[in-house]
């Protein structure tokens, strides 16, 4: 279980408060108007932004003092998820060993992960030789080998077209299920969310609300949500 207790994040005069508990292995959409602090929330959990008050706990243990790679967290960011000078295999392999010294067994795991996201035979390609969707698949394959119990997706597919985004949301769901991870995804598209999420965390007016079950949330959404989606 991930719990944020009395967390306050301050950045350039902006202040976000969060008191949220998320059960293990849930798929959670983080929704809210632009600039409400969705990405800020994920950055704090991931270890990229210091929190000024409160505590972040994973299964009861505080993780705020840990560096990003020491946290039980793996990420897909909005962009720059792949190193352009490394092949798909190397990019995924970093998830096993950041030194990139991979044993035969490690390589095997990487190849299986790439196969699982539908990229068999593309391991030697550089990102430039892959389509946008395929690049997202590489990033998702890395989540598979990292096997971290908490996956943070910060608008990971915003650069893709609508059909591809739906496909990726499905794939992200599968990836989360395979490693039994809790997955939190920031998204702007309610279609992605409906396919992907079980719960919703709503961020508005510098405050994190929730989580609530998706159905419940859609039946009785907060006022800001109706404005945000525009019916």
């Amino acid at each position, binding site marked *: 279980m991930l719990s944020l207790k009395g967390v306050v994040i301050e950045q350039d005069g902006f202040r976000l408060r969060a008191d949220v508990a998320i059960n293990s292995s849930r798929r959670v959409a983080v929704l809210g108007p632009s600039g409400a602090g969705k990405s800020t929330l994920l950055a704090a959990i*991931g*270890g*990229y*932004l*210091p929190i000024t008050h409160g505590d972040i706990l994973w299964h009861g243990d505080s993780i705020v003092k840990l*560096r*990003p*790679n*020491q946290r039980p*967290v*793996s*990420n897909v*960011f909005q962009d*720059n*998820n792949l*190193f*352009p*000078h*490394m092949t798909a295999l190397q990019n995924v392999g*970093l*998830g096993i060993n*950041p*030194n*990139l010294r991979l044993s035969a067994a490690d390589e095997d795991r990487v190849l299986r992960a790439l196969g699982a996201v539908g990229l068999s035979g593309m391991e030697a390609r*550089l990102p*430039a030789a892959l389509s946008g969707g395929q690049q997202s698949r590489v990033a998702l394959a890395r989540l598979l080998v*990292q096997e971290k119990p908490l996956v943070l997706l910060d608008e990971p597919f915003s650069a893709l077209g609508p059909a591809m985004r739906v496909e990726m949301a499905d794939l992200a769901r599968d990836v989360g299920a395979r490693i039994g991870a809790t997955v939190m995804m920031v998204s702007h598209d309610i279609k992605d969310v409906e396919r992907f999420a079980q719960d919703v965390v709503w961020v508005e007016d510098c405050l994190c609300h929730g989580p609530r079950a998706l159905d419940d949330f859609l039946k009785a959404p907060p006022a800001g949500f109706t404005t945000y989606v525009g019916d």
Partner: protein
Amino acid sequence: MASRVLAINPWPGLIVAGLVTFFSLGTLAAVALRADAFGALDSFDVAAVRFTVVQAFWSAVLSVALAIPVARALARRSFWGRRALITLLGAPFILPVIVAILGLTAVFGRNGIVAYGLTLAGLEPISIYGFHGVLLAHVFFNLPLATRLLIHGWGSVPAEQFRLAASLDFSWRDVFLHIEWPMLRNLVPGLLVIIFLICTTSFAVALTFGGGPKATTVELAIYQAFKFDFDIGKAALLAGVQFAICGAAALASLWLSVPQAAMGGQDRAVQRFDKGRVMSKIIDSAWITFATLFLAVPLLAIVMQGAPYILSLPTSVWSSALRSLVTALGSAGLTIVFAVSLALVALRWRWLEGLGMLSVAASPLVMGTGLFIMVFPFVDPARIALLITALVNAVMSLPFVLRSIGPAVRACEDRFGPLSDSLGVTGWARVRLVILPRIRAPLGFSAGLAAALSMGDLGVVTLFARPDGATLPLQIYRLMGAYRMEQAMGAALLLLVLSLALFYLFDRGGRGRAKS
């Protein structure tokens, strides 16, 4: 992002920062401490100070004054060979000074082309030595630099301004007053200071074209005090004076907006509507021709006059070439290690990168003198002459190299820092797997620059080297002194080829197989 900057061990960077500070300031202190008595500046020294400032002032003014019309012509005309000419404008930066000196002598010297023309016209040939020669050489080196920066200035003027000028029917005077003058007013002061600074520390020019009571710079006076009189007190005093002059100019350059794109790209011609007039066409062509001839003819002279002798050069020249190559490669390696370490530690403490820039104000002669004093009790300085040369050259190259590596490292960390952190790619793995591959191009360029600068350096090595331990530039200087001009020309051509080849190979290696 407190956690991010912890990703790389700061110690190598801190050690380099200390080393560089020691070379720039510590050597000065060593010289000052060793000086028995400071004494006062005698009239000869005062003359040296005055000459240094006066020649640097006029060199800067002349370079910029000539660069303005040349840059304007290049900025608004497109013609066949424009790119080649702009590339040629970048060449003097990595051109060994001694090569340019020989080229200029071949053109403007007593037996040169210009003297021949003057004699035909019944005039006395002018002397290339003294004030004229120093000015000539400095304009040769800095006119191209100023031109490139000013072309960039013209390129930065929004195209709409020239369109507006055309629709408002501006005369050339109006265009100058309303568009060009504001741009120039911004750039020119910084440009003048930079060139002034370069000209106060150009030892090799003063060594070859200067000399005597009327044309001795402070650096040349340090060299003479040290080499001929072994008067450390005098050398120390002069070193302090030199540092004060450079420091003042360097501070001024920090204060003024100094144009940054020193090695900028191939700017395209600015589209303009006032270039149809016949008169302006003639004037632009004249300036472009002048600049081309002024730069190309001395270099061509080296090629033409050196080529017949290059294969029959004595062994001493070849062995000095080998010595220079080793020194240049070592210096390039040191420069890269220094620059990358400093750029990495500057991610955390930005001001440390400023220490790498200190050597802008330091003089290699002062460094050399200080190091000589420090190592003298322990080893024969001549035995480690090449090591010291490589080190001093590396420290001197740092300001230029950091300008290209620093921003590249910062950009890489901005872009890939979060991903690297999330994957735990830290420490040496971060440097090896992420940063070095991402900064390949600036790395190659920097290594090429450092190698070429060291290859052509005729500074600190003059203090240390034994007769049988000369580098190629020093060997050429000695051949010139012995009036063996054919061999000097041949060796200069060899040096020119080696310097350009080093730069080209490194720069190419950085860009060639670069993965996007």
